[in-house]
């Protein structure tokens, strides 16, 4: 028996007369979206995939630059996708070094996508690249952006967030694929009586209308900082209001509601599945995936490395291992095993995106997907030479299949600003800007 959420496209179309009602309901859609009808640019997506605790760099860098390079051990999971991606070496995050919090663990994580100094007391950070993209691309989709991750809350705010709104507010992550599914497809149950759905929409809009007025009144009586908080509240209300008003049909089959994962491996896969589904259904065009958190001390008992003639599980904590990297030692090999597993998860995402065919190429062709960590060499907490992979063709604006070296990555000197890469990524998805963060003063050369 089908569960309520197992909807095929056909079921949707068979629905409850929704299809016939479409033109009228479309007229209720927000004016911005309406203005785009007829001149809608092709869908382009921006994705970032963060991993904590750096990489074991001696096994990261390819031996040669340009095309036809041989990937090192850590990039080997991406070998089949080599023609779909760029390995970017010698880029760094300089602004995070001017933070008032610990750089190596804290600022290099929360500042990874902001290219800004990070402050605590009061909390200050720049806007992250995904949120800049969302600001423009949200006009086309139901959700401005998705923030996914494997850990939520329960730790220091600057350990735990890579996505930041313009008001120094972290964007909380969804960590459960089943809950995310419910959110994505909320109110889209075609078995529901249309009148019932319409009545609910009416009531929701009246509640939102009320709180909008209420909070505007309240805002006038607040101090400046509090007013900013109330502005955030209002942003949320307006976004939800648009969502409630939108009644556009799903462009896809929602498929089955995922289960609640039993371990982190399943959690990662299901969350990435949901991300791809959300793109497929054009529910959003921007997503961040934060695997783990800064100073992540998770153990990886499901991985093992050879030790003499036996195999031992990776039971020591990730962060501890990342600081015990004498070449060839057991700990280093365990650390590398974790790094490689992380790259495998990224490869999984890319393969899924590549398998989705769109009118003008694959989903991967129409995206820019960044993989990276806030630091490179883990003992040095090196934020000047980051391990980065940029996958996808950005709708033909990128020329993948190469290893690009922007400066000597073996020297501890500031890399070319990663902020320039963010300028390029934004340009690729149609955000017309020449600046990002503190030191992004133009696009990154040589990507096309």
């Amino acid at each position, binding site marked *: 028996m089908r569960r309520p959420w197992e909807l095929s496209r056909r079921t949707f179309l068979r629905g409850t007369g929704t299809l016939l009602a479409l033109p009228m309901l479309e007229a209720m859609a927000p004016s911005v979206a309406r203005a785009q009808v007829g001149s809608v640019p092709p869908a382009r997506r921006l994705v970032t995939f963060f991993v904590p605790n750096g990489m074991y760099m001696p096994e990261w860098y390819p031996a040669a630059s340009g095309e036809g390079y041989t990937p090192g051990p850590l990039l080997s999971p991406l070998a089949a996708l080599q023609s779909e991606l760029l390995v970017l070496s010698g880029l760094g995050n300089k602004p995070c070094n001017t933070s008032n919090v610990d750089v190596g663990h804290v600022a290099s994580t929360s500042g990874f996508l902001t290219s800004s100094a990070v402050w605590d007391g009061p909390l200050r950070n720049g806007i992250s690249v995904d949120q800049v993209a969302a600001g423009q691309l949200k006009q086309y989709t139901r959700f401005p952006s998705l923030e996914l991750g494997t850990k939520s809350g329960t730790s220091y705010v600057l350990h735990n967030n890579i996505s930041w709104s313009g008001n120094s507010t972290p964007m909380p992550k969804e960590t459960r694929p089943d809950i995310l599914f419910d959110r994505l497809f909320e109110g889209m149950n075609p078995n529901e009586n249309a009148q019932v759905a319409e009545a609910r929409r009416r009531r929701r809009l009246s509640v939102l209308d009320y709180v909008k007025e209420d909070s505007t009144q309240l805002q006038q009586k607040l101090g400046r900082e509090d007013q900013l908080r109330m502005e955030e509240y209002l942003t*949320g209300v307006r976004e939800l209001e648009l969502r409630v008003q939108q009644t556009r049909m799903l462009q896809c089959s929602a498929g089955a509601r995922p289960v609640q994962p039993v371990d982190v491996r399943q959690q990662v896969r299901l969350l990435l599945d949901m991300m791809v589904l959300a793109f497929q259904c054009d529910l959003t065009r921007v997503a961040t995936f934060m695997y783990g958190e800064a100073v992540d001390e998770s153990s990886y008992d499901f991985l093992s490395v050879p030790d003499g003639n036996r195999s031992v599980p990776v039971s020591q904590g990730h962060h501890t291992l990342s600081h015990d990297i004498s070449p060839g030692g057991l700990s280093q090999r365990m650390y590398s095993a974790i790094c490689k597993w992380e790259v495998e998860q990224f490869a999984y995402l890319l393969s899924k995106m590549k398998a989705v065919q769109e009118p003008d190429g694959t989903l991967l062709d129409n995206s820019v997907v960044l993989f990276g960590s806030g630091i490179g060499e883990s003992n040095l907490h090196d934020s000047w030479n980051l391990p980065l992979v940029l996958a996808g063709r950005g709708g033909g604006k990128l020329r993948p299949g190469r290893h690009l070296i922007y400066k000597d990555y073996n020297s501890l000197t500031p890399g070319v600003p990663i902020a320039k890469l963010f300028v390029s990524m934004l340009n690729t998805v149609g955000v017309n800007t020449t600046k990002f963060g503190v030191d992004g003063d133009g696009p990154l050369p040589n990507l096309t």
Partner: protein
Amino acid sequence: MHLTPLGGRGDVSERSTASRRRWRVWAALVLALSGCQGAGTDPDGGLDPNGNASGDPSIPPQLIRRLNQTEYWNTIRELLGPGATTAQVLPADDQVGGYDNNAQVLGISPVLLEKYALAAEELVTSTLAPTNAQGRARLLTCDFSGANEEPCARQILASFGRRAWRRLVVPEEVSRLLALVKASRSAGDAFEVALGVGLQAILTSPRFLFRVELDPVPGAPSAHALDDFELATRLSYFLWSTTPDEELLAAAEIGTLRQAAELERQVRRMLADPRAQALVDNFAGQWLRTRQLALAQPSPTLFPTYASRQLAQAMATETAMVFAELLQADRSILDLVDADFTYVNASLAAHYGLPGSFDPSRFTRVALPPESQRRGVLTHGSILTLNATPTRNSTVKRGKWVLSRLLCDEPPPPPPSVPQLSSGPTTGSLRQRMEQHVSNPVCAACHQKMDPIGFALEHYDAIGAWRAKDGEYTIDARGTLPDGRSFDGALELAGTLKEDPALPACLVRHLFTYALGREPEAADQEALAQLTQSFQSRGHRMRELLVQVALSPSFRMRRAQQEAHQ
């Protein structure tokens, strides 16, 4: 001086009409002037016995803050009863300084707003569902048949609004809410559904989701007393992590709560209420970090009993129960570090090697004999496991925990380019390897403080089990702090810590942080010193400290954000 208008009935909740605003401007002006006189001479540092401002104590401005997840669900349960349900799952709140009620992280992002709004819809609908007799009885408190409908709706909205917004809801506000109900009715909804729209609006409003505190004069330079309802709200979220009960609201409504005597009476009443367990779960659980125990991952290969005996939960419970006893029995809270009793179930007793038979689930209070090698929180499995890596105990993490949580002397993070201790093939005991490691002068300054503390706990492994040896090596549990104080083993360390004047001062600092939802600033030093002084003079009893914090001007007053603040 006496200023009834500020504290009087009705005025405290009503901020919208012009005449009252004029009142406030005038009153604040008087307050500001009187502040100049009173500062420095008032023994209570800014409040007279009636709870009105009589000085301008040093209090930094405070941010408006959202109810955190714990507070939200507690509040919903109080308002709607146990039958209210929702499928919404809120993302866990982040922390600053180890606390998830810190105002810095309690803003509201769009995804949170969305979840709160949808939760309100589901919660209200489920409470008013025909199958939820209890929920209906709780909300539908009047006859809404025929012509009674409108007055009944008005009455429900006013009384529910008062509880949810933690202040009086003025007639104009009720009318606006009622307009929602009427519109829904006209569109053909049943009364309960239409009423639900009004209730949803109340639960989606920022007046519910945020703890709103208003300034009589926006941007006024001097601190002012909170109004009675704002004070009731601070008090109930501090002591109970939930919304004020009827008694507290009633005291706020008649305007007596701000009076020191009444405030103290209320605090003592609240501490005797079962809801004060929130202090154990939310304050102690975050101060001591035992909440984080759920995230610990001791290697199942090396420490199979951790999972098989379900020790994580048992360990957290042990620490919570010891803290709770000290709080309830009104003993010195400093006994936490060397308490000669604890609470165990059968699993934990087996883990500790305590003789006797114990209930598998119920926790029993036990006196700790010297041979148990257990005494005080430093020997609790919780703290020892929390501060370990998955495969071994961690001298550094244990030392760091004591410094940051008990002595408020957290060392800075290690400088870049310093390898951590190898977990690989061993040469020497953990202690010997540590000592080599910190011979590096860059590391020495901090490790000289951390490591001796950790060394004293060497007899406890990564999940807190007692061990006579570290593998093949004899354990040397002696430690000497940079100032010369020395100890041998956990029990002597506990004695040393208990004598340390930094311990009570640190607890005051942590409780202050929790009570106010912000980390102390330079401006708070005087207030902290006074609280520490009174804590000491009252025998370090936790309950007295809670009373003193609630009575302090820092808790009862606020300062407006300056307009130019950026």
